[in-house]
């Protein structure tokens, strides 16, 4: 076992797939000279000369060009700089990347990964702090992943690059520096896109999250444990196609559900999870579903305001306690 940060783990995933497959390349802003603004491409430019490209500030090209490169037979990894800017190439994602295969009747393959660093860091304010993953599980033709720890960061990114379908890979800015254990290369089990993981078993309540939301899920489970409440914690990992079965099975066992993410609550991905359980396993529920997300507000700058749009483990703890 080795300790790596989330950012380093993604670098390993890149290196291993680039080593194996010469058609994998990456492009985006500040990748080649800087190794990515969060160090998530560090070392790769030297290791793979000419395959990590610094682009102009031209996001429709970065993403649209990535789709074109994929159509031509390459395996691009394109970087969004900040997920906040994903609106710029939204049409390329929505109308080209996601639909090329279907509308051309299977002639096209788009093996592309779009990496999108998201979430609040300290006082990034309204345009550098956002979580926008919820838009994408609504778009057929793309897959969406959002790992929560270094081990998954690596295995999920490898799976994404190896996938023949386009994958949006959300990576949280706070998580980049988090360290976690990774086994030696030989021990690793490939990740299958679409699979959730029961990270902690429990009998009393199911807490579902992904990405940075998992920090809240874990911390809330710890708080609850002190009161003897055993929370089952499910890390979704993939948001589309998401692993309904694992969530439903867990809820059928615990009879209570709490969903949490950092993104705005209204119309967030938590709604899909909550709604699905309400529709498919309501009879198993002993209490109304709890759902946590940010209030309906752009992200403010001042520390005193920013702290108000965050979700805290105590919120979950209190809410879940109220279920019993």
């Amino acid at each position, binding site marked *: 076992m080795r300790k790596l940060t989330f950012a380093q783990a993604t670098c390993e995933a890149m290196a291993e797939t680039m080593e194996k497959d010469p058609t994998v390349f990456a492009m985006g802003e500040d990748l080649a000279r800087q190794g990515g603004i969060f160090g998530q491409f560090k070392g790769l430019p030297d290791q793979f000369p000419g395959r990590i490209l610094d682009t102009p500030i031209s996001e429709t090209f970065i993403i649209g*060009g990535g789709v074109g*490169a994929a159509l*031509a037979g390459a395996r691009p990894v394109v970087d969004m700089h900040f997920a906040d800017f994903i609106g710029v190439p939204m049409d390329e994602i929505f109308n*080209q990347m996601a639909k090329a*295969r279907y509308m*051309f*009747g*299977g002639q096209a393959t788009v093996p592309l990964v779009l990496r999108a660093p998201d979430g609040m860091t300290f006082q990034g304010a309204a345009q550098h702090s956002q979580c926008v993953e919820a838009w994408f599980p609504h778009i057929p033709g793309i897959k969406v992943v959002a790992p929560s720890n270094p081990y998954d960061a690596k295995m999920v990114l490898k799976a994404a690059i190896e996938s023949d379908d386009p994958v949006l890979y959300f990576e949280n800015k706070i998580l980049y520096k988090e360290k976690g254990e990774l086994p030696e290369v030989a021990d690793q089990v490939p990740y299958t896109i679409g699979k959730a993981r029961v990270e902690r078993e429990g009998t009393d309540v199911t807490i579902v999250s992904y990405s940075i939301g998992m920090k809240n899920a874990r911390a809330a489970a710890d708080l609850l444990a002190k009161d003897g409440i055993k929370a089952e914690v499910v890390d979704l990992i993939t948001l589309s196609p998401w692993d309904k079965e694992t969530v439903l099975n867990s809820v059928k066992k615990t009879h209570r559900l709490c969903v949490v993410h950092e993104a705005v609550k209204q119309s967030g991905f938590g709604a899909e999870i909550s709604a699905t359980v309400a529709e498919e396993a309501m009879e198993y529920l002993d209490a109304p579903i709890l759902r946590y997300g940010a209030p309906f507000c752009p992200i403010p700058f001042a520390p005193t305001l920013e702290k108000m749009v965050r979700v805290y483990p105590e919120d979950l703890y209190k809410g879940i306690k109220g279920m019993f």
Partner: protein
Amino acid sequence: MAVTKAQKEQAAKFYETMSTIRHFEESIKHDSLAGEIPGFVHLYIGEEAIATGVCAALRKDDMIESTHRGHGHCIAKGADVNKMMAEIFGKKTGMCQGRGGSMHIADFSIGMLGANGVVGGGYNLATGAALANRMVLKNDKVSVVFFGDGASNRGTFHEAMNVASAWHLPVIFVNEMNCWASTTPYRTTCNTENISDRAYGYHVPGVIVDGQDVFAVYEAAKTAVERARKGEGPTFIEAKTYRIEGHYVGDPELYREREETQKIFHDTDPLKMFRIKAAKLKVMTAKECDAIDEKCAEKIKAAKKFAMESEYPDSSEYMKYVYVD
């Protein structure tokens, strides 16, 4: 200078391609007006020389990105008209197995990477394909993106042109300057008479060519393709043409005079222009042209028959091709 056999063959090929497109479009127009074709259909009538001249300068493995007005590009690149027609009718035997229709016609086996329902959606795809071919896959394939005068006002034009130029990518920007973007005349949305003036801003050669003259288009395209293949970067070709038909089949065209359009067609029809020039160059006679027209008419009739007799896709397979796995 004596006319060579190769010149004659090339001329015949030009005319056959143009005539195929013309007959194809006339057939589609008829069937679309008759309500037999689902969806929106945009015709290439009057613009045939552009796709024909450009694609004649390409190899089979070169790649093109097309537009909503894509039938001509598809035929010129060498697609099977039966499968095209079937696709436009929404049949299972269509090249997209009925999932795409006119606006998403594509034939990846010949590098036709698709029509596009998003105006200006093709620039970055073509530029990305050029990047992949040159910088990643290390081959010498060339990409072409076709686009209208209206499309030239989209920001994607700028992003793709800039990268293509900065990185000397093998991509050719072929502007079909047909004076109209749907109901909007070109000059009301743009301050420059020639769209190719914009090429200067990227230090890319900007070439204006008579889009009704297939020989001229071919020569311009050949030069651009050679340049691109040698790694010297992109070229911008502005082909002057005119949109003869309505924006789409069924367009009431309230915004212009049908008479004027007909006069323009009368004066500049690329098939007619071909006949005149071919006679002058002594590469083809009117009779030879007539024979090709007849052959093309038959071919399109057969294509229609093929399409009409084909089945619609099986409803139960509607989810096929959303994902690879």
